[in-house]
């Protein structure tokens, strides 16, 4: 029960950071994908089932508030959390450059899925990835990982 409350608080906190803090902290109106970092972090370090569930719920909530195809983010965050645990487990995740690389790959996977799924389903033209957001997310990744290292219960 204690853990459930803890994850709920973390869930709300992540949403607050992503959607409300972006008004105050942004670069040219662009805010890094904080939720993706949390999902990658969970995929790397926490219970894998929790990571998948968190990724799925994060994506679902984001989908609810967005106007994109409902379920795309839920699928992509679940995939990112799964791949984080599977592919990147051989990396030394305490290394800053490893963190940069992992987040970069996670961003690439996320954007690929996020653009290809609507393309396959709707036949829409593939929108360009938000490069500034990707770069910002990669840059802040070590700081966020260090912060999460301190606040997340093991």
């Amino acid at each position: 029960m204690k853990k459930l409350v803890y994850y709920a608080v973390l869930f709300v906190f992540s949403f607050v950071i992503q959607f409300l803090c972006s008004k105050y902290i942004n670069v040219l109106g662009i805010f890094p994908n904080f939720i993706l970092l949390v999902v990658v972090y969970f995929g790397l370090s926490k219970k894998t089932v929790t990571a998948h569930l968190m990724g799925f719920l994060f994506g679902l909530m984001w989908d609810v508030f967005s106007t994109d195809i409902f379920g795309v983010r839920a699928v992509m965050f679940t995939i990112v959390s799964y791949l984080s645990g599977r592919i990147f487990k051989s990396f030394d995740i305490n290394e800053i450059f490893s963190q940069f690389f992992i987040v970069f790959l996670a961003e690439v996977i996320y954007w690929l899925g996020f653009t290809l799924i609507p393309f396959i389903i709707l036949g829409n033209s593939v929108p360009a990835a938000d490069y500034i957001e990707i770069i910002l997310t990669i840059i802040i990744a070590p700081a966020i990982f260090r912060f999460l290292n301190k606040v997340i219960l093991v």
Partner: protein
Amino acid sequence: MCQRRTSKYEDIIFAVLLLIGFSFIIGRFTSTVNFIKNFIYYFSYSNLSLVNYVFHSVENLADSIKTIVHVRRKNIVYKQKNKELADKLRNYKAVVEDYDNLSKLLKLAKIKNFVSVFARISVRDPSKWYQWFIIDKGNMDGLYNELPVVMFNKKKGAFCAVGRIMETYSSSSKVALITNAFCALPVEIKGKGINCLAEGFNSSLLKITYIPCDTDVKAGDEIVVSELSSVFPKGTPVGIINEVLGEPYIDFKTATAKVFFEIDNVYKTVVLMPEVET
């Protein structure tokens, strides 16, 4: 980071979640998916809006604190300025007292002091651009006819002659510019002590007349109000000589002068009112 813990159900749960996700994507127009979407939306929106409200409150609080700090800083600066000005006023009062005592003892005529009344130009007729304008101060502000009107020239850092009050009403006054053809102002060439007359001719320039022929007056010389003026204080800057026109067979030379006040950009003026002795 902590060690990764794997579960035997990991792959199954991943597959289930993917299945649910894709079913949401495929069935996004169905009533069931819409119901789920709306349910999550209404459930979470209230919480997010509450958090948003808290954020707004914190933001307002931060703004208020910032304002308080800013006002406090300003207050400190103003207090300091106030103290300095109070010191200056004390010194000024002491100087005035000394001056009064000395003028009584030496039986000297007192120098006229002026009170500045700041006025805004309310009417300026384009067809009479160089002749007159109306200011928003009048009888009620203590103004009366024949008072000098000046304007601060930033380049010179001094008040320059603009005109004089011709007609006064309760809350407005008509000012005749020195460039008005009806105006003539006794002036002198600064630093040379040559007395002459500055006449307006309804243009942006002044006509300087009665310059003695044997005097060395050239373009660039500054003209100021002379002692003979009954309107402006002596030494008030008027303009600068533009061109000297002289004929060898006449007694006086004539020149044109450019006025110092910004004739086309005059919006605010200062009326110099002699201080009333109490």
